[in-house]
């Protein structure tokens, strides 16, 4: 009797599954845009990107920006706008047509649009001019993002991610000093390679459920101030051997894993703190989270 009931349940499920047609047809569109540098002395970039693949890299041609966009017009309607007065480029590709969660009953079946649904996500590749000071504000949803900021003159950077897996690389020193760097990580992960090349005196990292892996390698001098906030997730810092470390860590059911540091009056110091030519000062808050400092 039970076997029969199970069979019936499975049967009903399969019947329904068979009646759910495949997702509605895709209408792929591509947009390629670029702008000559002209008299622009800087570029502000605001990107709001939902699901798909997002890349930033240095432009190969002497252009202010290049933009390659590929999207399914049945799902998203990306737009971009450049304000010549403020040198601001805004790109939006962050909302599905209709509501972020929607059942499309217009066609023969139903189609579920979810904000994290990147099966048919948008591809956006952005090339940015070298030598032009850049203020970047990136808000990413559920996407795979690769940010190659090598050789770009990044003056400010604000990265906010939802459930995206993001890799950021500074393989060459930033031509300009970065005055502000703020990284807010949601539920996925962030990996930063050669963060030291960013030449950021102040870096703020806030990690939610996801984790952050920050490699502080690269060419930098002086003192870097790092403000870390981790909740539920974890942050790993990879610090070069020659860098002196001072860390203040407020833990609430959190942990600090730093074998190289010694505590004195609630402040952790590395052995070379007083002699190092470049140092890092860490103010960390760990709530149900772990902070790990390793030497590279």
């Amino acid at each position, binding site marked *: 009797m039970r076997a029969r009931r199970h069979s019936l349940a499975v049967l009903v499920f399969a019947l329904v599954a068979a009646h759910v047609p495949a997702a509605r047809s895709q209408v*792929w569109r591509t947009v390629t845009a670029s702008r000559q540098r002209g008299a622009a002395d800087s570029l502000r970039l605001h990107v709001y990107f939902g699901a798909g693949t997002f890349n930033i890299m240095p432009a190969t041609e002497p252009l202010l920006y290049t933009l390659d966009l590929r999207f399914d017009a049945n799902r998203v309607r990306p737009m971009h706008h450049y304000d010549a007065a403020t040198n601001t480029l805004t790109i939006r590709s962050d909302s599905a047509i209709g509501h972020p969660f929607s059942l499309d009953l217009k066609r023969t079946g*139903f189609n579920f649009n979810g904000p994290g649904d990147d099966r048919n996500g948008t591809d956006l590749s952005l090339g940015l001019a070298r030598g032009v000071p850049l203020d970047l504000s990136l808000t990413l949803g559920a996407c795979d993002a690769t940010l190659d900021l090598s050789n770009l003159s990044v003056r400010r950077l604000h990265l906010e991610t939802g459930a995206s897996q993001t890799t950021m690389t500074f393989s060459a020193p930033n031509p300009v000093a970065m005055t502000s760097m703020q990284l807010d990580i949601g539920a996925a992960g962030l990996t930063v390679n050669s963060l030291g090349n960013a030449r950021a005196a102040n870096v703020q990292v806030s990690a939610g459920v996801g984790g952050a892996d920050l490699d502080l390698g690269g060419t930098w001098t002086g003192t870097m101030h790092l403000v870390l906030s981790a909740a539920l997730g974890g942050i790993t810092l990879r610090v070069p051997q020659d860098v002196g470390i001072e860390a203040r860590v407020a833990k609430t059911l959190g942990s600090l894993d730093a074998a190289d540091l010694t505590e004195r009056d609630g402040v952790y110091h590395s052995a070379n703190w007083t002699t190092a030519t470049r140092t890092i000062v860490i103010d960390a808050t760990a709530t149900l989270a772990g902070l790990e400092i390793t030497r590279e």
Partner: protein
Amino acid sequence: MRAAILAGALAVATAVHAAGAQTKRAPARAPSAGDSITALVDSLGRDPNGVAIERSAVESGPRTVPAGTTVNGSIGSFHGPLDVRGTVTGNAVALGGDVVVHSGGVVRGDAIALGGHVQLDGGTVQGEMRSLSALTVGPLAKSAPRTPAQATKRSLSLAVGWYLVLAVIGLFAALFARGNLENIAERIRDDFSRCFFYGVVGQIAFLPALVVCIVALCITVIGILLIPFAIVGFVLGGAGAIALGFLAMSYMTGEAAMRWRGAVSPYTPPPVVQFLFIGLSLYFVLWMVGGLLSWAGWFGALIRLVAAMVTWVAVTVGFGATLASRGGTRAPGGRVPPPRTPPTIPDASWQTPTPVSGVAAARRPTPPPRSVQR
């Protein structure tokens, strides 16, 4: 175990269906000579990545802005390249062609190519250079209409795909849910018109019932969390009932066809699978004919309409019967069918085997004849 086998087999069935209904990637359609310039210009103005341009600025065929000349405002070509050697104070737009800005050429606005590319050949574009594969709004946003051959092929593919899926599902329903199928069919046989009525009411009441369900969950406050699951479960249940009902109706149809041919014996159990396949095939034939006549304009549409109506009636009756019989768990008359148990064997039957050759009956003792006393 049965459930696992069933699940695997039905997964295959679903995969077959999914393959049949595979998503089509509609290719971007470049502007052609048949498109209306006015409609294109209008759509380009409404496209998020497009640009506004006056209709009067666009002319058919290749266009050139000669060196040393200035075009005040925008200029556009339709179905041909736009070569800029002079100065354009507005936008330079090519609909279905390339925009080429040659050395000495200046575009003070944007250079936009729809279905082409913007090429910089030593010139200057002060605005943005933009290439669009196609529009996202308006007539060109739609993919190219299907040719009659494509339409026929698509209709046939859909019909065959649905038939295969329903055949596989029907086979498993006949094997593992035969009782339910027979009860639903019996219900249809018992009162066809009432089942149809129930089916229509069920279809009309489906969404209101869902709303009532959601409201009821909201009232309980804690049930709010269950609303997404309730919606999915409700939709799944409804679709499952419709499918099961249609299979039962196919079974009925097959049985009626066989009975009409006089091929049903009252002394043998009904061949459920055979009836089911015959019924499904009859509906399939309707759709195949409709599909084959896809090229035939209104006549083909009429045949497809007939097929759709017949199928809808079958689905409605089956759905109504499924509701009335509570998924085939109740036989007509409201009685719950007795559980199927194997026939009982008398305990002592094996103890007294009977020889094949039979048992010689003993002669019954009879009293000796009386002697007559003289």
